[in-house]
């Protein structure tokens, strides 16, 4: 189910502005890859190019190759809509659909696409996805209540359940814990540990302890300078990145000596 991502020579633009320059990396299946770096260095932008979500912003586009196993998702006949059902995404701010119940939120991917599903199939999918997101026990008695009534951490897990319910092979997470308290964060981190059994997970985080805790490999992004595009500085095993980084820039960032 999980797939490998191979990026080579990817440039990302907003109109004329080059936001991310020449990134090449390999993201291993069934593992967690963390992107770290200062604000505005292009790591979220780069993450969003991995499921072509980036193009939703007017004027934004990308040049280069992103291989999902063997398929170039930027190939000429590739439909971004189908790419996104293969590469799911969880956002910084939990965003359950306000008009839908918890139940409907979980199966939103199928429902919004009018996929036919029997009642029992839907029930099973909801239970499986909510169990997978460690949320089932907390919400099983109020599945038909609105999703916006949950706490922030629960909402975020609901969004993860919603993303996994469409059975993607890759899960992108854009700072999924930055608006959560430590306990909810811990719940999500535990969840990430479980999810990596089945998915390729890429997570953007500002919290370096979190990167160290959850990820197998870490990539460090930085700006070449003010107004310059962001670049991938270094990527490696998380242990090695946090103990013996190869580049001075990485070491400065990780140890808090900046610039």
């Amino acid at each position, binding site marked *: 189910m999980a797939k490998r991502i191979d990026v080579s020579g990817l440039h990302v633009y907003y109109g004329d502005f080059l936001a991310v320059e020449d990134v090449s990396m390999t993201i291993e299946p069934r593992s967690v890859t963390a992107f770290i770096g200062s604000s505005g260095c292009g790591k979220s932008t780069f993450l969003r190019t991995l*499921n072509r*979500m980036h193009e*939703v912003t*007017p004027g934004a586009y990308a040049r280069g190759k992103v291989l999902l196993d063997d398929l170039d998702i930027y190939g000429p006949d590739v439909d971004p*809509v*189908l*790419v*996104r*059902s*293969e590469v*799911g*995404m969880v*956002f910084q*701010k939990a*965003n*359950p*659909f*306000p*008009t839908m*119940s918890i139940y409907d939120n979980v199966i*939103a*991917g199928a*429902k*919004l*696409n*009018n996929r036919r599903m029997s009642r029992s199939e839907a029930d099973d999918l909801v239970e499986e996805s909510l169990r997978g997101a460690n949320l089932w026990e907390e919400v099983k008695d109020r599945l038909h*209540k*609105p999703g*916006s*009534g949950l706490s922030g951490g629960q909402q975020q897990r609901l*969004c993860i359940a*919603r*993303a996994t319910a*469409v059975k993607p092979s890759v899960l992108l997470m854009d700072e999924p814990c930055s608006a959560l308290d430590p306990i909810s964060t811990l719940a999500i981190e535990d969840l990430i540990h479980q999810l990596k059994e089945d998915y390729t997970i890429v997570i953007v985080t500002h919290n370096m302890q979190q990167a160290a805790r959850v990820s197998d490999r870490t990539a460090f992004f930085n700006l070449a300078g003010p107004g310059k595009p962001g670049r991938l500085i270094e990527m490696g095993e998380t242990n090695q990145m946090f103990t013996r980084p190869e580049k001075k820039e990485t070491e400065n960032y990780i140890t808090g000596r900046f610039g």
Partner: protein
Amino acid sequence: MSTTTTQPPGPETGPTEAALRHASLPRYFPTALLASCAAVVAGVLLAFSSFGAILWALLTAASYVVITVTASARVEGGRKATDRFVTSLVYGCFLLAIAPLVSVLWTVLRNGFDRFDGYFLSVSMNGVLPSMDAGGVYHAIVGTLAITGMATLISVPIGVMTAVYLVEYARGRIKRVITFFVDVMTGIPSIVAGLFVVALWMVLFGPGHTNGAAGAISLAVLMIPVVVRSSEEMLRLVPRDLREASYALGVPRWRTITRVVLPTSAAGLTTGIMLAIARVIGETAPLILTAGSSAVSINWNLFDGQMMSLPVFIYSQVRMGGAVNYERAWAAALTLILTVMLLFFLARMIGRAFAPKSAR
């Protein structure tokens, strides 16, 4: 007394606490003062036997403001006094603003009830001479509902879809051009919209074709820009997050719009549409030009013959000038207001059914 800064402040005293406290007027002060001002002013006016409601209200308000601000400045200090002054000012403006509204409603209710009954609502003016003590408004209700209904059916799809296009798809120059023309359309005087349809009908069907559909189209011309504008605002309120959440599930854009964006903003869209209907339901000038002003019988057919409507009915009755005509005009005005209120009530119900659920 400066030594206390080094030790923790006691539970009761200490300079920090004293500095945070402030003398204030008692809570009942404004109410009590207003009541006594009203009583005293009324007494004085009665003593001079020159009591008038408006004079009384003005003098009461003036004396209340002067006394409150002075007392507050003495006891509570400058900032609180300013606060009380501005508060009084805001309340005063509010009362001033709703006075005409209440007055209009009251006048319509009082005059309208003379003739407002089941008979009036259920018969037309067919075969009734203008001065006879008979006849009703049923044909005008029919006309108003049919014409406004058709106008709504035309302008809601066009308006909402234009708004969707502007918010979700249009970029750059074309967006500016459309927005500009929508703004221009908003400013079209209603009589011009009527003339436009008269000219259009002349070209299409030749002279002498006055019917409800023409009226509906002229109202639609007035309604579309209002619907576009309000729907645009409502669609913009839908957070980008929700659209992205939907895209991230592999949902195409058009389904995202129809299944996520529109339902999320449904309550606001309904309110906007209701406001647009309320804006056109009282239009008179374009309907006189397009749907005629002399229909007296019930006509459900939008495409054949003149059609009376409530505003035109009011206009033509007032023009006849007899006492019974005035009664009919007032009763029709009351009918119109009640119709609009009923529509608003319905819109609230619809809006509530669609509104995003946030209850825990």
